[in-house]
């Protein structure tokens, strides 16, 4: 049984899947199962540059041992995507947070999936789920050109419409989004102008979108040791990169229960009294993370050099 901090993955494969898009296959460094996920989930990848980037999981969750993400090189981006394209190599380790899901597939008899460019990534597992659920579904996949559009080879299905802009122009949103019945749920992911255009036309009750906005970050994520203070006993313990906060506080005498040790079950939730948490779990939602008052200590860490826990 391995109890090592489960917040690192190894790059097992890196493959160009379209112009400017690489797909990464990520595995556990010890070959263990990765935390379970559902369609629409993303992971945080913590790059050695200290940057955190969110990527949708676009692989097959019936394979519990690998995650797949696809990364578009963004010339205007903050450097994270360029680093993945230019520097990241097979065998490298990257920090992992999540998976978390803010773009859940809700039950419905009919789905319309609208993908713009790299926005196809969260929709691929949704299409798979819709197939398995026996729902009616349709996917319209837009992009600049066929060469820029990833995973076309995986979308060989009469219910898929491929819509390259250089051949067909902009997506015909007016046609696609009028006359939808109440049972249809529209899932759209893509660049902001596409999302804005869809929101302008689609009845809001039917629409679910995902926008990746760069999160306001406190101190950058770090891999240096930090100090955890156990408030009730006054004990202090240094957490080095190789151990989890859970292991460190247990070694310091705190009787914290845990169960999954993957950040998924919620058992190890501990109250934070002071400090700046680096959340890596799958349990807390955005509001709960922002509150900063609790920590899933089996996977989550600290951004600052001091964290005070109610232990």
């Amino acid at each position, binding site marked *: *049984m391995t109890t090592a901090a489960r917040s690192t993955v190894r790059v097992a494969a890196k493959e160009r899947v379209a112009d400017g898009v690489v797909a990464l296959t990520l595995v556990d460094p010890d070959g263990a*199962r990765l935390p379970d996920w559902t369609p629409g989930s993303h992971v945080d990848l913590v790059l050695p540059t200290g940057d955190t980037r969110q990527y949708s999981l676009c692989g097959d969750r019936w394979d*519990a041992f690998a995650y797949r993400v696809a990364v578009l090189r963004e010339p205007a981006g903050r450097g994270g995507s360029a680093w993945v394209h230019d520097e990241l190599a097979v065998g490298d380790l990257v920090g992992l947070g999540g998976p978390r899901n803010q773009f*859940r*597939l809700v039950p419905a008899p009919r789905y319309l999936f609208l993908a713009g460019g790299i926005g196809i990534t969260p929709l691929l597992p949704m299409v798979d789920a819709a197939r398995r659920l026996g729902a009616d579904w349709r996917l319209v996949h837009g992009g600049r050109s066929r060469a820029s559009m990833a995973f076309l080879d995986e979308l060989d299905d009469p219910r898929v419409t491929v819509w390259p802009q250089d051949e067909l122009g902009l997506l015909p949103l007016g046609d696609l989004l009028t006359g939808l019945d109440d049972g249809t749920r529209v899932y759209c992911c893509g660049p902001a102008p596409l999302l804005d255009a869809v929101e302008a036309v689609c009845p809001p*009750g039917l629409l679910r979108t995902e926008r990746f906005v760069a999160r306001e970050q406190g101190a950058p994520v770090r891999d240096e040791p930090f100090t955890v203070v156990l408030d009730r006993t006054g004990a202090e313990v240094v957490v080095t990169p190789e151990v989890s906060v859970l292991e460190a506080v247990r070694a310091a005498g705190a009787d914290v229960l845990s*169960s999954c*040790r993957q950040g998924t079950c*919620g058992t190890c939730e501990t109250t934070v009294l002071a400090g700046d948490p680096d959340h890596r779990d799958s*349990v807390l939602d955005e509001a709960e993370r922002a509150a900063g008052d609790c920590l899933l200590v089996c996977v989550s860490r600290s951004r600052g050099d001091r964290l005070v826990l109610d232990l």
Partner: protein
Amino acid sequence: MTAVLPTLDLDPFDPEVLRDPLPAQAALRDAGPLVRLPRYDTWAIARYAEVHAALTDWQSFESSAGVGLTNFRTGTPWRPPSLLLEADPPHHDAPRAVLAKVLGPRALRKLRADWLADAEALVDEVLPGGTVELDAVPALAAAFPLRVFPDAVGLAREGREHLLPYGDHAFNAFGPTDNALVLAGNASMPEHAGWVARQCEREVLAPAGFGADIWAAADRGELTHAQAPLVVRSLLTAGVDTTVHGIGAVLHALAVTPGAWQLLRERPELVRVAFDEAVRWESPVQAFFRTTVRDVPVGDAVVPAGEKVLVVFAAANRDPRRWADPDAFDLTRDPSGHVGFGMGIHQCVGQHVARLEAESLLTALLARVTSLELAGDPVRHLNNTLRSWESLPVRLVC
């Protein structure tokens, strides 16, 4: 395959095995990582490593064919299948996400102060002062969950006496359908099930509570309105008997383990450890079945596709390959990683509720009771899936 597959002629649902399952569970563990049980044409996994692996590997071991002996692919379930316990991804995804949020540790923070006050009130009622002898099952283990949980769900006051027999039968029904416990429960079941079904409807539920939260999720589109009552039903089926027996288990363990009550009084921060250690030690939910979706290797052998496999949580929780001195109830061990709540995507979604109930009651008892010991022979209540006490006579010194 050259290895001979261990085969045991034992009936996990025999009344004598249910009365004292430990020898049969040890025999299953010792026989091998995978054991054939010809009595019901099924298989068993009882060692910790393989149990943990089978529970987390939902891709190979499905739940939608039922987690009892009846295979839903060939036999008829006694009630519409659970959207949680008896479902697999992707159908399982939405109900699980909704209920995990409704019962999540953050949601329970709001209940903490109220439940501790309720526990103190209950303890004051049953302990007027001085030394008291009582049956801890009705007076404490059942009384406390029945006092707080139905209110938290938002159930009507009328008819709550249906909850325990309904849950008891539901857990019996994971066993063989011609078994005496199942047959004995069948007659009164329509009445209990009818009441439970009516409580799942929105009009009957209080405007605030877990039940209303589930219906609100349906209004937001996270569930269908047809799914909502079945998700509420899961709360009522799995949320009452299990916590009653979990609390009974920890009270029994503390009463029979020398020094345990005193240690807990000195170190009340161990109450959460005490409850999880009791869940490990007793395993209120003993086992569930899974069904193989393909030929699945276990140890050196292979379970063929489509077979029912009994995954014995209780045996794993006392596997000496995983736990030092597994038969000892030990407040100084770390019980983390036990499979008493299961593990993986089907892990008990109400585990934080159970922990908070137990923590509230134990905290209130520790504040008043200086010693806890048996005052007579406890009597087992038999159930095909649950391990529990019918009566637990104890002496409480205040």
